[in-house]
């Protein structure tokens, strides 16, 4: 059966034998075969696929208008960074879906690094820093980004539910940022406004909002 484990010798009071029998009877009464979760790589690929497919669909509906105005270098750097962080966020989520798995990425640190790195990249890539029509152009972007983040949050919920969350606050927060990154990617493909302030506030704002929503939901689940 479980010959893959070596238990240390147990000293001290044993649990009540009747209690153990009762527990065993409870478990066997509702025993059904279950399929173990797939490997980390498969889960990670599923999460990354959610990111790619939703980003594509989310931008296809309003149109890939940004692709016409972005240079090749801007596209490579900006989309490359978004893809890199999507990969890291999905890995962090998967690490937290399996109890006792090796945790390399710290969600809080990753979220801060992602926001800072993408923000810095935006400042470097887009030289227009004017604030003309800042709010009127920004609100539709924030709305589209938030809607896409919300949809990817709903889809990801199905994925998260297959795991057992030993730290719901951390896991749902980091998934919130991942969902927010879908919103940022949709806007990166759709929005033709190459203004650094606009992208920083209204595009990354969608990611920040999704992360905060994840934190609040996670805190609620963690109570």
């Amino acid at each position, binding site marked *: 059966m479980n010959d893959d484990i070596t238990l240390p010798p147990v000293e001290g009071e044993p*649990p009540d034998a009747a209690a153990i029998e009762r527990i065993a009877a409870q478990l066997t009464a509702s025993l059904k075969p279950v399929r*173990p979760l797939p490997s980390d790589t498969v889960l990670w690929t599923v999460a990354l696929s959610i990111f790619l497919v939703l980003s594509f669909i989310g931008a296809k509906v309003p149109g890939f208008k940004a692709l016409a105005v972005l240079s090749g270098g801007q596209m490579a750097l900006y989309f490359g960074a978004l893809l890199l962080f999507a990969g890291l966020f999905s890995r962090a989520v998967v690490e937290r879906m399996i109890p006792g798995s090796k945790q390399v990425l710290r969600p809080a640190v990753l979220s801060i690094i992602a926001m800072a790195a993408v923000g810095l990249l935006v400042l470097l890539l887009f030289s227009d820093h004017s604030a003309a029509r800042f709010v009127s152009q920004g609100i539709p972007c924030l709305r589209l980004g938030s809607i896409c983040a919300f949809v990817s949050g709903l889809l990801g919920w199905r994925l998260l539910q297959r795991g057992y969350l030993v730290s719901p606050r951390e896991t749902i927060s980091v998934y919130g940022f991942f969902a927010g990154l879908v919103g940022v990617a949709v806007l990166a493909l759709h929005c033709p406004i190459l203004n650094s302030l606009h992208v920083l506030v209204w595009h990354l704002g969608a990611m920040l909002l999704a992360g905060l929503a994840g934190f609040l939901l996670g805190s609620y689940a963690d109570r």
Partner: protein
Amino acid sequence: MVAYQQSDPQAAKALVSQLSPPIFQFFLAQCRHRSDAEDLLQDFWLRIHKARATYRPGEPLLPWLYAIARRVRVDRYRKTKSAREHEVLTDQLPEKAAREPARQTTPPITDLLKSLPDSQREVLLLLKVSGLSLEEVARTTGVSIGSVKQKAHRAYESLRKRLGRGGEKSQ
């Protein structure tokens, strides 16, 4: 574990009887009463049953088990804490019992452990009572091996100081 996932009742029974004693010790060392530890053990197995699909064959089992056990304990702690905050005292407190003459020179080990901060006590219990390796404790608690070593070191230091103080008092 694999046979349990495939709904073999004998495997489930064997798993419960083999794993309950060490998990019970883990809970008992962190509870005031034996009955609390038994409740936690029952809750633990219900959660294991729900989460059994998240165990993947070939992966180390102990960190998976203890990560869930840890979550069960944290949830119970929060629930008890919140219940205690809402409790209203209705009865008079019983009179203080006459003080027993001091017989012990050093406090019992369970009292010493309970004097440690939660995170240090937990690391020490997992390392010394449950017999997990540093890597397994790191996986269970979701921190780095370095952090586990640091917590264990602090716990040893704190216990050493307390034991030293106990010894001084007795002289």
